[in-house]
């Protein structure tokens, strides 16, 4: 366990990162075109927080896109910046201390960073819905479930009274809440965890959003309830062509539901592609490590898990080059100096299909895939 470097060293490492530049040519596919052909396209997003030890770059040049009806999984461990990414998209970063410093968030062709706060309020809960991990703390405990849903109708659809109530009951029924007309008048504490999460989903989808962001929405729930909720979300995507951004640390959930996957580590997307590509031919040592460190239901018991050495890095104290370098067995000298950008995976690296968008940010990924990587020399 290395001791943390003294404060002046920390500052020296973190200060060049604060004015984030470079990496402007986003490697994510059709960015050359004017505007965006995607429902949501995030380009080079950077968000930082001011702390006593200087700035912490929580999101550092993140680019991804989602199309209509598509499910994208954003995977990573705690502190990798996945939640900050989603909050930045919604412009919900508390400022101060947080600040979006760079990038574009193109939703249906409009940059959400440029519009007024009033317009943004119409987007939130209107065309973009969001559900959070903690259904108890995200619901207002002194308002009935029904009131919290009809509030959205008043704001976004100008629907009031009886009509609002009928529609809310209909949506509560749609999300599978038993006895919806009674539940309409219940308070959050009267509902079970799964029911509260359903009520949250009802609120989020009440105005037919084009995009739903589910930030660890099922993490606090039991597996059988998690399955209920995710099946529901998937059916909503199929039915209304709603796009879904699943933010989670659960690799299984992403494998089951997402078509495409982006893996985050220390504020950056380090690998992205279709779910089949990422799981069958992972290219980044972190992705590979993550996949082999989870116990699988179908794996024979008592095989030793291949754990990733070391700890998740402190964002305030990132290494100079690739953030994964200290934990990476394949790291070479270059990795400690220069941070890699995402580049398309070459056919020689075992790419599944031609013309797909499998990308990886690793200097050594090609050498690892072809078996010519030297790896860390034992010191």
């Amino acid at each position, binding site marked *: 366990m290395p001791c943390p470097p003294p404060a002046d060293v920390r500052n020296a490492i973190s200060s060049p990162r604060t004015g984030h530049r470079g990496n402007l040519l986003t490697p994510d596919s059709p960015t050359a075109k004017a505007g965006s052909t995607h429902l949501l396209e995030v380009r080079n997003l950077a968000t930082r927080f001011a702390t006593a030890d200087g700035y912490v770059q929580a999101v550092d040049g993140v680019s991804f896109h989602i199309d209509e009806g598509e499910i994208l999984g954003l995977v990573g461990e705690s502190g990798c910046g996945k939640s900050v990414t989603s909050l930045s998209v919604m412009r919900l970063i508390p400022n101060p201390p947080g600040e979006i410093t760079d990038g574009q968030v193109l939703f249906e062709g409009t940059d959400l960073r440029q519009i007024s706060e009033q317009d943004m309020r119409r987007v939130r809960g209107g065309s973009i819905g969001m559900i959070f991990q903690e259904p108890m703390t995200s619901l207002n405990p002194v308002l009935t479930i029904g009131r919290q849903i009809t509030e959205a109708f008043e704001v976004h659809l100008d629907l009031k009274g009886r009509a609002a109530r009928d529609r809310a009951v209909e949506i509560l029924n749609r999300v599978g809440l038993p006895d919806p007309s009674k539940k309409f008048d219940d308070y959050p504490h009267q509902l*079970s965890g799964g029911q509260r999460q359903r009520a949250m989903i009802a609120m989020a989808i009440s105005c037919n959003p084009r995009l739903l962001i589910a930030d660890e929405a099922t993490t606090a729930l039991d597996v059988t309830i998690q399955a209920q909720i995710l099946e529901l979300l998937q059916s909503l995507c199929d039915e209304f062509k709603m796009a879904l951004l699943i933010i989670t640390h659960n690799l299984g959930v992403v494998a089951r539901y997402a078509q495409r996957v982006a893996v985050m580590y220390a504020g950056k997307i380090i690998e992205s592609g279709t779910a089949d590509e990422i799981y069958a031919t992972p290219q980044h040592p972190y992705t590979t490590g993550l996949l082999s460190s989870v116990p699988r*239901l179908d794996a024979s018991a008592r095989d030793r898990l291949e754990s990733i050495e070391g*700890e998740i890095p402190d964002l305030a104290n990132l290494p100079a080059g690739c953030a994964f370098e200290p934990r990476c067995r394949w790291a070479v000298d270059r990795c400690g100096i220069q941070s890699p950008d995402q580049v398309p995976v070459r056919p020689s690296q075992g790419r599944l299909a031609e013309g797909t968008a499998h990308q990886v940010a690793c200097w050594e990924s090609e050498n690892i895939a072809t078996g010519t990587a030297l790896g860390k020399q034992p010191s």
Partner: protein
Amino acid sequence: MTTRFVERNSVDRGGTSADSETNTTLSVHDLKVHFPISSGFLIRRQTGAVKAVDGVSFDVAPGETLGLVGESGSGKTTTGRAILQLQRPTSGSVQFRGVELTAVSAKQMRPFRSEMQIIFQDPYGSLNPRMSAGRIVGEPLTVHGLGGDKNQRRDRVAELLERVGMNPAMMGRYPHEFSGGQRQRIGIARALAGEPSFIVCDEPVSALDVSIQAQILNLLTDLQSEFNISYLFIAHDLSVVRHISDRVAVMYLGKIMELASSEDLYENPTHPYTRALMSAVPIPDPILERRRERIVLAGDIPSPINPPSGCVFRTRCPIATEECAEVVPELIDRGNRHQVACIKV
């Protein structure tokens, strides 16, 4: 001390000897923990009970891991606490190496406390923030008089910390200076200090990140084979339980629905609840996932205050009939020590 190790190591692991006295570390029979509900003003009387654990039986062999899996509210944690007599059971028997613990007084229980340990879920809540790592790990040595003099204790603490993968130089640091994974390692070192032969691991990895989970699971496996410790491994994550357990018991609403060897349970799940639970756990492989059968259970786990009559699972069971409301299914051995409590399969 020496006799204990000789005895432990001489026992054949996983044998099928009928002599339960020597071949079982722990034997639990018909364990019940009911929490009374009182009502009434001035004159309070018991009007009901929360049946947290309602007739649970199993054995744990030396060096074996029994996984206890179930959703929240199924009584897993209460079972673990009742075994350690941290929660006195309402009825039933808990035998540890032949001694009936339910009949033992709190004072008589003390020598067993070092042999039966617990590792908690929350690595933040289970360590005293005012004590250094060294004192936390060293406390069991002082309490049970195990460590010799001060210097010997200190050496032993260093050895324990090193064994769980921590730098002994960090002995003087306080819990807030450690990451979640490191705190869990401290908790494990503390449990090891008493040289236990049995540890209740209550969701030891569920609060940790994926890459750290694997480190802790590997550590627990290594310690088990080194010291021949029996684990009762409580978790809600079936993949984790399958990975670490020799046998697995599936709990639902205070009862065991199915108990089988880890391999057998996953190859041949019999109880409809086990099947639903397994189908709800996604496997990190999208190609495989497309082919898997998905059983989605309706509704929530019922309240343990008024559990359903007959089979407690019948309200959510896809194959339940009227008969299930009347007959309480027994946990019956279907051969190969595979026990199932269902009248329909």
